């Protein structure tokens, strides 16, 4: 019999330009909150998994440094990297360790300090986000890749720039209500449409912002979760898939095949389908990415993601509220922390503790965390008793 894995504690720090803290200090904020939330002490944790992308930090081999700062020595720790999905990769890794029976209580910490690098270092890194042998030599950037998905989606399905902007408007609306978000101001379609161009058809408001931040979840085996928590949230479906790094080797540029595969696996494992999901956190690194997510996850038919958001169907009160914490777009995107932040939000929703952002009757939730342009995708289905 496979062991179920529950989430018994959650913690989250403020996302933004955190020139007040080192990366391990950011990790500590989230860890402390999660441990207190779980009613545990550090000594109750068997191991930690750190989700982070190493090349942003001056500190090399981050996991050990974080482990030391958290006071978890001499227990094991390890780092997982899956680009912008490193946080969900870390949760998956912790889930695997508990399922395997090796550990009973695992702290998963996603943390990233992206503002340690100066502008020239960021611009150099930006030039190597693509496939470096055949693509980066033409000056491609991360926005440019998603922009090419957007352009193709517009061509095939008539998706409009106003529909793209509708994603940003919705996510800023909810970001304004989230105390952990980087941007806490509403925007309009007009403002989004007239922001500076980045890579056509994207303007600044089509793109999420780099940020510093951390989030933490405490995972436990079913037996321990029931001992320690009155209301554990279960990792009931765990899907994971990969796709080519290069856009030159993708059959289609109007969806992410890794997201489709990861969703199918997660739905199957949890015994649910898209219609059962009451609240979702999807990877809106760019506005088009949220539209692709609706379609890849089966929230709406292929090609109909633009109207789906523009008609307000992913607001609270609509068919399926999505990114009601502001998403990457308004929260900011500390890449290692993002996946854990998504899980944090769904746990909060399933506990009924999301206050003015609470989705009514939220009993089944979903996270969708994408690395790169879909090289990695992790989908989680979370449920409560």
């Amino acid at each position: 019999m496979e062991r179920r894995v529950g989430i018994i504690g959650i913690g989250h720090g403020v996302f933004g330009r955190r020139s007040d803290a080192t990366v391990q200090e950011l990790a500590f904020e989230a860890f402390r909150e999660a441990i207190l939330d779980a009613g545990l002490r550090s000594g109750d944790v068997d191991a930690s998994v750190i989700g982070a992308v190493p090349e942003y930090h001056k500190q090399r081999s981050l996991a050990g440094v974080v482990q030391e700062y958290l006071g978890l020595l001499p227990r094991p720790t390890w780092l997982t990297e899956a680009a912008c999905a490193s946080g969900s990769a870390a949760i998956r890794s912790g889930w695997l360790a508990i399922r395997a029976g090796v550990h009973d209580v695992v702290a998963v910490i996603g943390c990233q300090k992206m503002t340690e690098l100066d502008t020239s270092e960021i611009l150099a890194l930006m030039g190597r986000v693509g496939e470096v042998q055949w693509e980066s030599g033409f000056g491609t950037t991360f926005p440019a890749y998603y922009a090419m998905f957007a352009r193709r989606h517009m061509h095939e399905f008539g998706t409009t720039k106003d529909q793209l902007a509708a994603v940003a408007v919705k996510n800023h609306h909810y970001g304004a209500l989230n105390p952990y978000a980087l941007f806490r101001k509403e925007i309009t379609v007009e403002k989004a449409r007239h922001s500076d161009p980045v890579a056509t058809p994207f303007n600044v408001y089509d793109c999420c912002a780099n940020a510093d931040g951390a989030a933490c979840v405490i995972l436990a085996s079913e037996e321990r979760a029931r001992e320690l928590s009155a209301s554990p949230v279960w990792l009931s479906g765990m899907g994971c898939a990969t796709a080519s790094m290069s856009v030159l080797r993708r059959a289609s540029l109007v969806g992410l095949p890794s997201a489709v595969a990861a969703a199918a696996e997660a739905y199957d494992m949890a015994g649910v389908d898209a219609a059962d999901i009451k609240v979702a956190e999807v990877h809106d690194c760019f506005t088009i990415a949220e539209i692709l997510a609706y379609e890849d996850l089966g929230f709406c038919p292929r090609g109909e993601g633009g109207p789906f958001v523009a008609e307000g169907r992913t607001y609270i009160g609509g068919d399926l509220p999505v990114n009601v914490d502001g998403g990457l777009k308004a929260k900011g995107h500390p890449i290692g922390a993002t996946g854990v932040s998504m899980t944090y939000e769904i746990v909060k929703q399933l506990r009924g503790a999301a206050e003015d952002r609470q989705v009514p009757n939220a009993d089944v939730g979903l996270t969708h965390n994408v690395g790169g342009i879909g090289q990695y995708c992790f989908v989680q289905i979370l449920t409560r008793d």
Partner: protein
Amino acid sequence: MFKWFGLVNFVPYTKVDGFAEHLRDGRIMGSRCRGCGAVTFPPRSDCSACLDGNFEFIEYSGRGTLHTYTRIEAAPTGFENHAPYIVGVVDLEEGGRALAWFGDTVREEDVEIDMDLQLVPRMSEEEEAIRVYYSLERPGTQWVKTPGSA
């Protein structure tokens, strides 16, 4: 000499480094697996279908159609002086895709998805070091050798 490939090169060494010499000489090459015959562009030395590590270069016509594109305004290191520039992904007639800049033979306002294009070898005329790449041009555009390209 794969270090010649790209306006900025990040990967100087590869098993398909002959690609750059062919490009300098005006030929765009894909690869064919000697084991199972699978044809690939960009070329690769190792076949993921049959695991054979032997390949041969085969010449591509360069003809293709535009799959998608974007005009990049915010450029990374090494491209600051070129911005803005348009990159496109083209579906090649013989299979596979290429990503490249648009050249001078296509006006920006004429760029549209599904248009026919020609992938044309290029040599940088501005740099002392050899720089070879390719650009997306109007169908029928010929490769023009530049001085020193032998």
